[in-house]
């Protein structure tokens, strides 16, 4: 092993040969900083913790460069789970278990699959937009979002596969934007607004439904689809809960603003506006769901009763998320949407 003296000698020798090696000196002296900066001055896309150079043009123009705008604790752990629990829609779903179904049931499955195919487009496009607008100093958040984009792509893929696998086809597209109260998930320009709307409300509702997938499934393939999608969706919801929890702790001055986002989300959940909740009232998909839950076209009303119970469960789980994130004061202080509160009480 080279001694410090001999090293110095041949470093000098190398420099005499024309090598620069100044970077090596910098690396030798560099001590990794601790933690993530509250403000990011990174405009060159450098890796968080790397040594900045003075001669690199700035091209980052990242919109989000403040930790408290985007951060959440434990995202690294969550990201590892994203990596570990990837699956294949081609080979991990037992497609061979799908058998011909009555036309009404097949149509309902296909309508629901069409809905999920389309709604996953939103869940993929919108997080994707935020990735490149966020400083790489907050890479943990970017990683969670890009992993979500991957999951959502697989979801749109698996539901398209379901629609086309069993003698059916894609059905009616959804109207996902009209009659929206306040801003839509699509239009959110602010990360917390986006996250509360997509992760907490939108995907939260879908998660409840996926968890109850056994009730809508008519074969092992469908059960596997819902089960696997539920696992993925739980991670997406976790991004939102972890972020809101962080905001509650470290940006309490924004609590009122966040409550406004939640107001809007609840209004949509209560009325079905926005069309993102397949179990929502007056939705095309709620008809299909009722058919699946009841067991056929002639049992839709029985299905509707189960659907009502599902809506109550969606609300119950939403309230649990509020509690977990530290925003459950709205449940007790009269701010929460009255229709949801009623559902919650009915479910208790």
């Amino acid at each position, binding site marked *: *092993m*080279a001694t410090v003296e001999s*090293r110095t000698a*041949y470093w000098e020798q190398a420099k005499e040969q024309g*090598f620069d*090696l100044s*970077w*090596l000196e910098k690396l030798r002296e560099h001590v*990794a900083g601790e933690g993530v900066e509250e403000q990011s001055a990174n405009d*060159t*896309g*450098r*890796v968080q913790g*790397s*040594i*900045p*150079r003075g001669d*690199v043009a700035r*091209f*980052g123009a990242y919109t989000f460069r403040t930790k408290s705008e985007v951060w959440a604790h434990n995202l690294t752990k969550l990201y590892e789970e994203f*990596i570990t629990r990837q699956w*294949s829609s*081609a080979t991990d779903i037992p497609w061979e278990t799908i058998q011909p179904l009555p*036309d*009404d049931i097949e*149509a309902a499955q296909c*309508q629901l699959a*069409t809905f999920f*195919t*389309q709604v996953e487009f*939103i869940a993929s496009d919108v997080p*994707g937009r935020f*990735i*490149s607008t966020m400083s*790489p100093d907050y890479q943990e958040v*970017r990683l969670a979002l*890009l*992993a979500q*984009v*991957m999951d*959502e*792509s697989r979801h749109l*893929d698996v539901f*398209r*596969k379901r629609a086309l*696998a069993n003698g*059916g*086809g*894609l*059905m*009616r*597209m959804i*109207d*996902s*934007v009209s009659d929206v109260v306040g801003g839509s998930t*699509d239009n959110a320009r602010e990360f917390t607004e986006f996250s509360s709307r997509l992760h907490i409300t939108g995907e939260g509702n879908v998660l409840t439904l996926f968890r109850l997938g056994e009730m809508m499934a008519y074969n092992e393939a469908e059960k596997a689809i819902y089960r696997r999608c539920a696992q993925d969706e739980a991670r997406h919801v976790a991004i939102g809960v972890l972020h809101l929890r962080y905001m509650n702790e470290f940006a309490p001055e924004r609590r009122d603003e966040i409550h406004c986002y939640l107001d809007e989300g609840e209004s949509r959940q209560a009325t079905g506006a926005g069309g993102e909740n397949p179990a929502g009232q007056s939705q095309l998909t709620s*008809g299909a769901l009722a058919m699946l839950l009841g067991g056929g076209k*002639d049992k*839709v*009303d029985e299905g509707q009763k189960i659907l009502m119970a599902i809506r109550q469960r969606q609300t119950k789980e939403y309230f649990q998320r509020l509690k977990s994130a530290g925003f459950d004061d709205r449940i007790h202080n009269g701010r929460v949407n009255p229709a949801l509160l009623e559902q919650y009480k009915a479910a208790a």
Partner: protein
Amino acid sequence: MALEEEQQQSGEEADPQSSRTGTSPEAAIDRFSWMNDTLEWGVRAQPGKRGLTMRDLNVGSYGEVPESSSDMSRRPRGAFPISGIPRTDLYALSAKVDLWADNAVDLYEEAIQRRWMGHLEIAWEEITPQPYEYELAMRQLCTELAQQASIETDLIGQWLHKMNYAYHEVKTFLASEIFDTGRHYTIFRHRALHNGGSLGLESAGQFNRRMMETRPGWTEVSVFLYLVRGPLTLLLYRFGEAYARNKADQLLFRKCMEDKTRHMAYGMAHVRYAVENQPEGFGLGLSNLMRGVERDLVRDLNDPVLWEALAIIIGGSVENIAGGMAVVEDLKQRYIEDYLRRMQWAGINKTEANLSPDLAVFLRREETAPSGD
């Protein structure tokens, strides 16, 4: 179709369910009207030996990929359209020629099948402390590669949401690519910090800037990302594997190489498709565009940091850096040759004759040319 017949029947006869609930027959018809709304019914995509792949779904009208799409409502391709739907987004990339590659659909499935887990599959404990200078150089190389991956994340992130869902095969493939870039970032950063290290200097950055600031289209970005940057990244992975001192490092570079090869397969196929299907002169335009781009590239290739780090890794120490640098010069030469080959394959007339003279230097033709005596 059977559904239509059923609907007609339910319209003619009072639905017992609706009469029980007091719903009129007309309302009952409306209630189930969606059951008629399909453009093609009776599809039964069959799984093949690789399972039920996305390509298997491209049957009948569902497999018809439009040359352009004016749909801004995210209607899944082949879903039943309804009128009066407001536009949800303005997809700037709504023409097939702007993003398509025939192989994207298969590469997406391949990406899923060949997924791997850096934090579990790499035997990190095998990466024991190496001689000091080698370790510093390795940190520098890994910092550079982590940044390359991160820039790729940014780049795809900038464009992915602008792509119309009529081309979901490409969007899902690029989602898998962005996922890969996240993994590459993570493992190279992890490798740099392994053994109690810290990160090295940020990239020289000129070419990163060029890619990030490119606005005309995804095809131009693809040329830069897959035909210019891609071959370099791939070579760095190759050399990383070849000069690795343990199996863990070897595997790490090899796995990344597999991913990168897949990314480039899409990118090259797309650029070729664009050149073949855009109006005449498009390929010439891309070739002309490269004049300035190549000067950016020269600046990065002359920056000593990455190359000296690589020379130390290859040589094993600063003492042997000159020997290592000879190999690095070979790498640079191979890189430029590879760049030319890939451009030509894609239909862009880029040759040694029209290469930027500063870049042509890296081909070292005068060193290898016969003396003529």
